[in-house]
């Protein structure tokens, strides 16, 4: 695998405020990466530096071996910047065609490519519409469509589902899943459940510092844990589960959600043992997840 993004010692100062402090990381190609952190942590600043919208105060950034903003990256990197909107005075077709032509498409090819990317986001009938004639969710999907013009190698999405209704958010998640393997994504979001489904690498920013980089879901801690979400009013479940022979410890997140740590060497089929025990004691559950949730991994 080659290096997709490399950042070394990135600092960003806005006056006296330091938005990013010595941020260094590398992302390999073939991964979908989540950029998470609380508000004001520096996610959008880092995203903007990667897209060459902001310049770092110091440090080195390389994307696919080139500096952000290099001619070599035009058409190789797509992005959905947070809150960026298309020009409301022009039809979507006009704007997407311009973007395609800037990426080297001929006029004829540009029209076909615009149709293709709008098909991908399921909005092919909006080609001649102006952006302000569309709903917020549709506009967001059109903006994602522009990021897909020319089938870039890397697509960066900043808050792609923020402010969307569940149906539109699901469409976007589905779109990312469908394109997984063809495109490497970097997704900045507050929705950890969503990122958990989509991403295999996580960058956590806190107060401008990259405090954690998880590569892959299966860290050693994760591989020896399960998260169980029970139906309500089953207070006796905790005692029953603790009695299972392979269980090392049980953490109760709340009355319904339990994290089970178990001995994987002693019982590699712990999940089957657990399900049998639940069935035997007529305990109803909603969800059983292998490993810790992303929220647990990052913030517990």
């Amino acid at each position: 695998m080659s290096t997709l993004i490399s950042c070394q010692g990135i600092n960003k100062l806005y006056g006296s405020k330091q938005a990013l402090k010595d941020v260094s990381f590398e992302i390999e190609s073939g991964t979908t990466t989540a950029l998470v952190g609380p508000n004001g942590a520096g996610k959008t600043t880092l995203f903007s530096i990667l897209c060459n919208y902001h310049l770092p105060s110091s440090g080195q950034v390389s994307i696919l071996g080139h500096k952000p903003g290099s001619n070599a990256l035009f058409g190789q990197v797509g992005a959905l910047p947070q809150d960026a909107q298309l020009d409301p005075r022009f039809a979507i077709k006009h704007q997407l065609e311009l973007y395609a032509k800037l990426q080297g498409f001929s006029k004829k090819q540009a029209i076909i490519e615009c149709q293709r990317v709008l098909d991908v986001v399921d909005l092919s009938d909006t080609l001649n519409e102006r952006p302000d004639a569309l709903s917020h969710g549709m506009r967001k999907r059109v903006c994602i469509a522009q990021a897909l013009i020319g089938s870039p190698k890397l697509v960066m999405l900043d808050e792609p589902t923020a402010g969307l209704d569940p149906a539109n958010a699901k469409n976007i998640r589905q779109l990312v899943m469908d394109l997984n393997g063809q495109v490497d994504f970097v997704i900045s979001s507050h929705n950890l459940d969503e990122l958990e489904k989509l991403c295999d690498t996580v960058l956590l920013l806190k107060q401008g510092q990259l405090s954690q980089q998880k590569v892959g879901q299966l860290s050693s801690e994760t591989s020896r844990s399960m998260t169980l979400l029970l139906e309500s009013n089953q207070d006796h479940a905790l005692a029953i589960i603790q009695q299972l022979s392979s269980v090392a410890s049980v953490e109760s997140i709340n009355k319904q959600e339990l994290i089970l740590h178990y001995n994987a060497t002693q019982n590699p089929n712990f999940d089957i043992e657990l399900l049998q025990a639940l069935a035997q004691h007529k305990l109803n559950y909603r969800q059983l997840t292998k490993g810790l949730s992303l929220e647990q991994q990052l913030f517990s």
Partner: protein
Amino acid sequence: MQAIWHICQFELTRLFLTKRGGILLLAFAIIWLIILRYPVLSAANILNGASFGDNISAFSQSMNLQHLIDWNYGELAIYWLFAVFAFPITAVLMSSDQLASDANRGTLRFILLRCSRNQLLLGRFLGQLLILASLITMTLLAAFMMGFYRDSSLVMSAMDELFFVGLNLFIIGMPYIAVTSLLNIVLKSSKLSIVMIIIVVPIFHSIVSYLSTIIAPLEILLLALPGIGLFDAAQMPAFEISQTTIVPVLQTIGYLAAAQFLLTRRAL
């Protein structure tokens, strides 16, 4: 170069295919219809009148307009007198939103994934120049056609005038478009850019002019202001290339260099 050309072409569609562009064009057309219908149409009679020279001298000593009598084409002479002041304002109004709205809306972020900031700046500037050139050409030809209907025998002798009027107007308009580019980057607002050029620049000009009567070297500051040679241009025979045409070219290069410097360093 191809990216610059695509951006440049898109600027043309911005004027000719959008509602805002249409309204600006309509306003422009109405104003020029009035100018062409009244002063320019009657130009020949005015300029060819026996007492014109006396009247114009009496009219103003500071505005030395007697050279207008020397023009072959009376229509072009009057056209020049109006156009030399009208096109700078037109250039500012038409090009007032080269970058500001797109930057505030985030649209520039989509574009900058596909071209450099230099290409964007240059493409939009050249697009506005094309618009200016097309507007000058349209109005100039209209004035020319009026003269043609009056006396078609003068057509060949007016070709030089036609060419140099167009060229000079184009050159006079250039620094206004370039300074609007610069102000769009600095002020991040198209309206403030207009206010700055139409109101603040003349005020600044007056202050510097006054101060330069006390401290003479300050006069050099005036060279940085667009329109510094506008009155000189109005007074000169339009079919000459002189210092009044060189200064706008140098100003244009200066403004664009400053705009490039700021745009490549600004967060977008």
